Each structure stands twice: as structure tokens, then as C-alpha cells.
């Protein structure tokens, strides 16, 4: 029986380097990552080794996978796991990094930003449409409002991740000012949202109901994620 355990990820867009350092520390203790798992990684008990880890973001065309893996393998980087366009590699400490120049490093973060952006843009648009629909329709607490709230709960973290991914790209390009501006944006939007809410609650009585709905959405979404995570964890434990 193999001993496995689960560790959380800080979110690759937010803490790629921290995640890779963490995986290295675990390897030093004999716990080696073997795959991605909902918002984290699964580790397997083995011998202590000084491994380093790297992430690459790339959308691979059909038939390109063999070549891609071979280029990495011949440079000393073993493929561990892939999840969508995210690929995790491992090498002995001291191996040359997978990216060796700035231009291609920028490409890496562009790939990451584009793939998160693909998810975020339609989600945000859908959310905006749902809110417009909810405001335009007459009933105060209707299906559209609920949909809008649930969508908001999904769209906000996705949009935040996309923004962070773009920020990583701008940082790699050396555009510090743009990156800092992007970092301030979510807080600005939050402030504007609060201001709009306060201003709105004077004129309409629906604000309290809206707040309730928002709270439900904000609590329900992480709860569902947590439930799914726990469930899949317990299924895994039973399998072993």
C-alpha cells in the first residue's frame, strides 16, 4: 500500500514559486508530488531526494505531446502530471531551468493569462447580463437574481485569477507600473461596489434582500467546493 497525502496549492497564478518551493521541501522529506488534485497536489511517500519543480503553461496540439515531453526529458526534466494546459516537471537540483531567457518567459505567462482569460471573459459577460436581466425584471427576488448571485460568486475569483495571470505577464515583461495598477483594480472595484450598494440602499428596499442573496452566494460557493473536495478525498482514502 502506497502512502499518499494531499497538500493545498496557493493557486498557481498567485503563488507559483511558493508552490514549487513547497514541493521541493516535501521532496526533501521524502514526499513526492504525483499529480494535481482539486486546488492542490497529491504526494506519495518515497525516498528523500533533492528535486526541483517547474510549471509550464502550454496548449499542446494533437500529436505534439511526444515531442514536447522528449525535449524536457532530454534536458533532465521528468514529466509528472498535466492538468489542461498546465504541465508539471521535476528534475534533480542543479538542473538548468526550463526557461532560460526573458522573451520566452514572457510567452509562458502570456500562455497562462490567455488560457485563464478564455474562462474569465465569457463568465464575466454572462454575469453582467444576468445582473442586467435581474435589475430589469420586475420581481425582486427571482430566478435571475439567484443566477446572477451564483454567477458572481464564480466570476469574481475567476476574474481575479485572470487579472493576476496578466499581472504575472506584465511583471515578466518588466512593465511594473501596469502590473501594480492591475493589482489595485480589484480593490477599486470592491470600493465602487460598496459605494454603489450604500447609495442604492437609500432608494430601494430590495437592498437587504440583495445582500442576503449575496451572502448566500458567497457562503454557498466555497461550501460546495469544500464538500466536493472532502468527498473526493474520502473516496481516495477508501480506494487505498
Amino acid at each position: 500500500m502506497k502512502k499518499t497525502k494531499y497538500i493545498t496549492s496557493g493557486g498557481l497564478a498567485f503563488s507559483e514559486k511558493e508552490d514549487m518551493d513547497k514541493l521541493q521541501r516535501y521532496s526533501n522529506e521524502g514526499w513526492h508530488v504525483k499529480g494535481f488534485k482539486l486546488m492542490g497536489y497529491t504526494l506519495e511517500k518515497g525516498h528523500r531526494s533533492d528535486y526541483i519543480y517547474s510549471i509550464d503553461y502550454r496548449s499542446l496540439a494533437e500529436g505534439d505531446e511526444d515531442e514536447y515531453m522528449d525535449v524536457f526529458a532530454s534536458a533532465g526534466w521528468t514529466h509528472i502530471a498535466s492538468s489542461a494546459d498546465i504541465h508539471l516537471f521535476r528534475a534533480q537540483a542543479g538542473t538548468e531551468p526550463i526557461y532560460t531567457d526573458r522573451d520566452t518567459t514572457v510567452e509562458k505567462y502570456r500562455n497562462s493569462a490567455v488560457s485563464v482569460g478564455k474562462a474569465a471573459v465569457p463568465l464575466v459577460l454572462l454575469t453582467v447580463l444576468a445582473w442586467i436581466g435581474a435589475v430589469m425584471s420586475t420581481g425582486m427576488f427571482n430566478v435571475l437574481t439567484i443566477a446572477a448571485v451564483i454567477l458572481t460568486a464564480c466570476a469574481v475569483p475567476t476574474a481575479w485569477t485572470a487579472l493576476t495571470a496578466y499581472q504575472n505577464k506584465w511583471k515578466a515583461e518588466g512593465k511594473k507600473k501596469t502590473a501594480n495598477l492591475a493589482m489595485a483594480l480589484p480593490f477599486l472595484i470592491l470600493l465602487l461596489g460598496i459605494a454603489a450598494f450604500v447609495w442604492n440602499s437609500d432608494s430601494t428596499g430590495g437592498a437587504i434582500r440583495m445582500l442576503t442573496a449575496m451572502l448566500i452566494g458567497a457562503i454557498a460557493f466555497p461550501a460546495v467546493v469544500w464538500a466536493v473536495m472532502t468527498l473526493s478525498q474520502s473516496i481516495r482514502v477508501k480506494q487505498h
Partner: protein
Amino acid sequence: MSKNEQLTDSMFYIMAALTRPRHGYGVMSQIEETSNGAVVIGPASMYTIIKKLLKNEWIYLYDDSDSRRKTYLLTEKGREVLDGDLQVRKLMIKLAEAGLKEAEE
């Protein structure tokens, strides 16, 4: 990348290695060997640049009978681009050498 822009060093090395048909691993070891290990190109950089050169039609797929080790070769256009960049680099070296020599005298 526009025509007037200079090649990055990595692109330059890779294109120089692809004057003969080589696969990704072949390019990396060729560069490492000829530079005595002074220049190393990481696999992710390597793969990114190969894709970019293909898109620019500066290299073409020479042989894909082995899906793990596809080989590539410079196109006529690629040859011109590499040669153009070589002339710029030669000029850069000439300027630096002349400048240093002058400073010594």
C-alpha cells in the same frame, strides 16, 4: 516579431544549429557542445522558439517519422533572416573591438 527587430540570442543560436536537420534535443546538445557549456537553452524556451520559427516560416518540418524526435531545417527565408542578423552582430563586434582598442592606445 517584425522584420527589423533583432533576433533574440536564443533564437540566433537555435537557427544557427538548424542550418542542418536536427531535432529539439539535437539542437540543445549542439549549442551546449559548441559553446563548451557556456550557453544552455532550457527545454521550455527551446520548444517555444521552435514553434515560433515554424510560424514565421523560418524553419520547416524536415522529418516527422519519429513523433518524439521531429527534425527541422532552416527555410530559404530563415537563412536570409539569420544572415541579416549575423551582419548586424558582426558590426556590433567590430564597433566594440574598435572602441576597446582605441581606449587602450
